[in-house]
């Protein structure tokens, strides 16, 4: 027993590893748990909320424009066309969260496929694929997003594709690294010697063992995707009105910073809160799952 270990007795660790050590570790990560609550709340708020409130996100009422929050029927006030900000926030949440989830799903799909193939076949195929990944990573993300944004018409689908195109590389790298090392392990070699096909080994034997880092990367990707959506909107290439998103609500609020600051505050807080939550969840997941990988 060296002193280092003794010292680390002061650190909460160990002795919990019983049935679901990863889950327990995650549940003990307070910020992550709080983050999860916020995300669940935001999701409910966005998807179920519109049924609860008496306003619609697209109904304009120019006479009731720019009403201040907490002063009347409109809890969070109204925008320049007299639309209810709360309702718009909810509908925008649907779009922004969906964009976040969908872009992540797509980026994980691309990343996993590329990483899997590159990690499994290595050699020329792997080298070419991974150099392509490296090349894509040479572009600063906003530069890449803008360059691709110029390619496509701004719709929800295209924004999803756009964000996925600019964010699959990290996943590919993570998967490639995992697969390459897993491939050398006994069970992969065993499966191979039993005559299992490449596809089978890749998806049945190797991939399940690489799930933990993928989950972590995916969670952080959601945060990144929601943030990216707002950046693209701010720079003028985002989802365009009348479809509301947190990003374009924020962009449109720019002109009203002085006379209607709540238009900027409300979506800004929503984005920050949600993204922070996802980041914390990702953090908690990493702490919870990485420990298992190390053992």
């Amino acid at each position, binding site marked *: 027993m060296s002193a280092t270990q*003794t010292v680390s007795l002061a650190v909460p660790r160990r002795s919990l590893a019983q049935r679901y050590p990863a889950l327990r570790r995650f549940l003990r990560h307070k910020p992550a748990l709080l983050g999860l609550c916020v995300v669940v709340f935001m999701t409910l708020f966005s998807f179920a909320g519109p049924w609860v409130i008496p306003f619609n996100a697209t109904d304009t009422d120019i006479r009731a424009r720019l009403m201040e929050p907490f002063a009347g029927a409109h809890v969070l006030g109204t925008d320049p066309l007299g639309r209810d900000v709360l309702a718009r926030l909810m509908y925008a949440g649907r779009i922004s969260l969906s964009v976040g989830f969908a872009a992540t799903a797509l980026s994980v799909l691309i990343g996993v496929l590329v990483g899997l193939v590159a990690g499994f076949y290595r050699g020329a195929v792997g080298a070419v694929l991974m150099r392509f990944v490296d090349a894509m990573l040479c572009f600063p993300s906003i530069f890449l997003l803008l360059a691709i944004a110029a390619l496509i018409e701004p719709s929800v689908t295209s924004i999803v594709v756009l964000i996925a195109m600019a964010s699959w590389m990290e996943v590919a790298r993570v998967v490639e690294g995992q697969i390459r090392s897993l491939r050398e392990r006994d069970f992969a070699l065993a499966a191979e010697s039993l005559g299992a096909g490449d596809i089978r080994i890749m998806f049945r034997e190797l991939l399940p063992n690489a799930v933990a880092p993928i989950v972590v990367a995916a969670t952080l990707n959601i945060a990144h995707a929601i943030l990216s959506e707002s950046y693209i909107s701010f720079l003028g290439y985002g989802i365009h009105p009348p479809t509301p998103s947190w990003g374009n609500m924020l962009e449109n609020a720019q002109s009203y910073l002085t006379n209607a600051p709540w238009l900027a505050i409300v979506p800004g807080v929503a984005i920050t809160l949600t993204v922070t939550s996802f980041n914390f969840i990702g953090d908690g997941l990493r702490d919870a799952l990485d420990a298992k990988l190390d053992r």
Partner: protein
Amino acid sequence: MNHLEPIHFVAAEDSAQVDNILEVRDLNVAFRTAQGHVHAVRDVSFSLRRGETLALVGETSSGKSVTCLGLLGLTPPAPYCTISGSARLAARNGKTYELVGTPERVMRQVRGGVASVIFQEPMTSLNPVHTVGAQICESLRIHLGMKGRAATDRAAELLNQVGISDPKRRLTNYPHELSGGMRQRVMIAMAIACEPSLLIADEPTTALDVTIQAQILELLQKLQSDNRMAMIYITHNLGTVAEIADRVMVMYAGRIVEKADVVELFTRPQHPYSRGLIHSVPRLHSGRVRKTPLFAIPGNVPDPAAHPPGCTFGPRCGHFEPGRCDAAVPDLESARPGHLVRCVRWPEIEGAA
């Protein structure tokens, strides 16, 4: 070491035994953890004479390392770790330091100056970004105020002393450029740099190759006799104890369970735990490194946060007697002069053996 100003020193004549370098009384070390308070060391008392080697023996987490770290205040700071009791250490200049509860500023003068430590892992115990020379000179500068040329010369001399050839060149090397044995020699050189009166060697050979182990032990013995240092030698390897120690102290779950001269302990072990330890070494002078030398003792060390009642060794003891062994923690009794044992049944066991 006249530039030191020991605040907590006690006049030498006040000490009961003038010859003793180190006098430890009722040392307790407790950690605060998420699981509650953990008493890592309980009621440890011992003394050490000049030139004497005391071996501290025990399993992992028996408290042997913590005892020594606690003495030098190398345990975590106050709220996480509390130390109580008393430990008086005499410097070569006759000043005596109280080590428990002493301000950090004074303790810094003690560490490396009056008492030094050699750690188990020479690979990681040296700072990778500084040269060997710089690390040795740092000690010299702090405690002896040596600088520049003088310090370098002294460092080279030290390297020479610990058996490193071409010491001048070695001083400019970084730790990663040296072999494991060499690094441990550097660690030793650093430890003896300021001629401490006490050297604590915490499993100094565990991480080394078998051949190197013997060389290092030899070196330690030689340095000790040359410098007349007192040494605490911590190990779980009884094989090396017989070679180097004068006296042995066996610890279990934070307590001393037996204390005796080395020959006495090996020939007439009293505590069932000590007997187990000795029996689990196949040959006394085995050079083999045993990662699990305790295979003969069933069970595991108890959870430090939840000790069994009475004798902590009880659940693993072949002589366990309900009602007697788990009633209260046994006292340390004197089996013979200079031979202490913490077991209520030691007379019976001795008879039975």
